[in-house]
């Protein structure tokens, strides 16, 4: 079978209220190097799919890969999601044009001049107020080559997904405390974000409620106070959260890792 040197993308799947497609940032895969693939989700207006923690309802998008021997796909590198308020219930997810990047490790043994078939089974839930589950098997054929160029078709989408990644909050230290009916996260360090629309989304489930936290600004410190989840059964060792200033996709966001301790019993 003869194939052109350029990547051959399978046709995007048009599901209910969302177009879904597997795309590659580069036109070819280079042996021994990592490449970035993406699940491209094109939502109809008012419809959304979900982040790793969907919030009060919903379901995170899930990928199951079928790859040739030696190839390895990582987890979704989640861009900063938006907060959705559905009648007082809160969800986290994506609307409009979204791209969920995944790193693909290409084995050194891959043979330049050959083609590889990559496939993924994607499962998602797309909701406006009502929800529709979706499932599709998406395929992508890419050539193996000594060098790869950026695919101009998806350059902007991958650049946007990169820009929508949280930055590590290296300059700040996070600690979380279980204070009984609340979970308080303290972020300490120089010049913490001070925007008035500051928000925070917690990755772990069953720890905090999903309403926006109370934010208290201090000198070189910031406290985010969350109601404890009604479904809390035990504290994880640490909370991972996104600290968000502004609204995605134009938000500034930082990822904070906050070891969680229990408050000392009151005397």
């Amino acid at each position, binding site marked *: 079978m003869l194939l052109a040197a350029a990547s051959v993308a399978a046709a995007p799947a048009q599901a209910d209220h969302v177009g879904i497609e597997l795309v590659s940032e580069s036109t070819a895969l280079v042996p021994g190097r990592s490449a970035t693939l993406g699940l491209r989700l094109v939502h109809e207006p008012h419809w959304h799919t979900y982040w790793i923690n969907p919030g*009060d309802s919903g379901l995170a998008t899930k990928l199951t890969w079928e790859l040739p021997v030696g190839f390895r796909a990582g987890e979704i590198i989640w861009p900063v999601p938006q907060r959705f308020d559905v009648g007082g*219930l809160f969800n986290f997810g994506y609307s409009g044009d979204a791209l969920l990047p995944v790193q693909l490790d290409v084995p050194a043994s891959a043979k330049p001049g050959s083609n590889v078939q990559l496939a993924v089974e994607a499962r998602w839930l797309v909701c406006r*107020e009502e929800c529709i589950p979706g499932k599709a098997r998406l395929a992508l054929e890419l050539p193996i080559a000594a060098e790869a160029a950026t695919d101009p078709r998806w350059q902007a989408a991958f650049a946007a997904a990169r820009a929508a990644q949280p930055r590590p909050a290296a300059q700040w230290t996070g600690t979380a405390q279980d204070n009984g009916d609340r979970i308080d996260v303290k972020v300490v360090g120089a010049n913490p974000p001070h925007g008035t629309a500051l928000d925070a989304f917690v990755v772990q489930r069953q720890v905090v409620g999903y309403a926006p936290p109370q934010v208290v600004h201090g000198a070189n410190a910031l406290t985010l106070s969350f109601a404890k989840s009604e479904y809390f059964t035990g504290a994880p060792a640490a909370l991972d959260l996104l600290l968000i200033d502004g609204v995605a996709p134009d938000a500034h966001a930082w990822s904070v890792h906050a070891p969680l301790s229990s408050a000392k019993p009151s005397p």
Partner: protein
Amino acid sequence: MNFRSTVFALLVACGISAPAWAKVAVGEPAPDFSLTDSNGKTQTLSQYKGKIVVLEWNNPECPFVGKHYGSGNMQKQQAEATAAGVVWLTVNSGAEGKQGDLDGAGANAYIAKVGAKQTAYLLDPTGSAGHSYGAKTTPHMYVIDQQGVLRYTGGIDSIASTDKGDLAKATQYVPQVLAELKDGKAVSVTTSQPYGCSVKYGS
């Protein structure tokens, strides 16, 4: 402990709107309600004092609900529970005009269509019972003991998905809670993360 009013005061002080609902807690009395069922009869929680009561939040058009009715899982749990003397109340808190909102006749047609086996199907179009229980998803399950104390709140099972293929692998929490209560054992899972569609409350 005056927890509820403390939280409320804090929220007001910080200028954040109070949650639209109270919290129910496992080990605490479950709130009473008075709702009309699909046959026009008034149903309250207090009338079932002395019996175990299961509450199931429902929206017939939600795909998560469809997973558990389409597979027969929900009907089987309803039939087994009611045969053992448990009262099973299905509650629809969908506001008028929202997806899954039913009137009495519509609810009875749905029950007949899916072969549901609950004790009664309760209509809560104002969302009052839903809000007082903090029902968030369809399904969302509660188990209340003979003394009216909440013994379980959370999901129907342990695998959040719309896929019927996951049912066999999942722990079905309500039958587990009912069996433990019957045997006088401690309830092993009292709380889990509910999963499903948002309850379609009116704004």
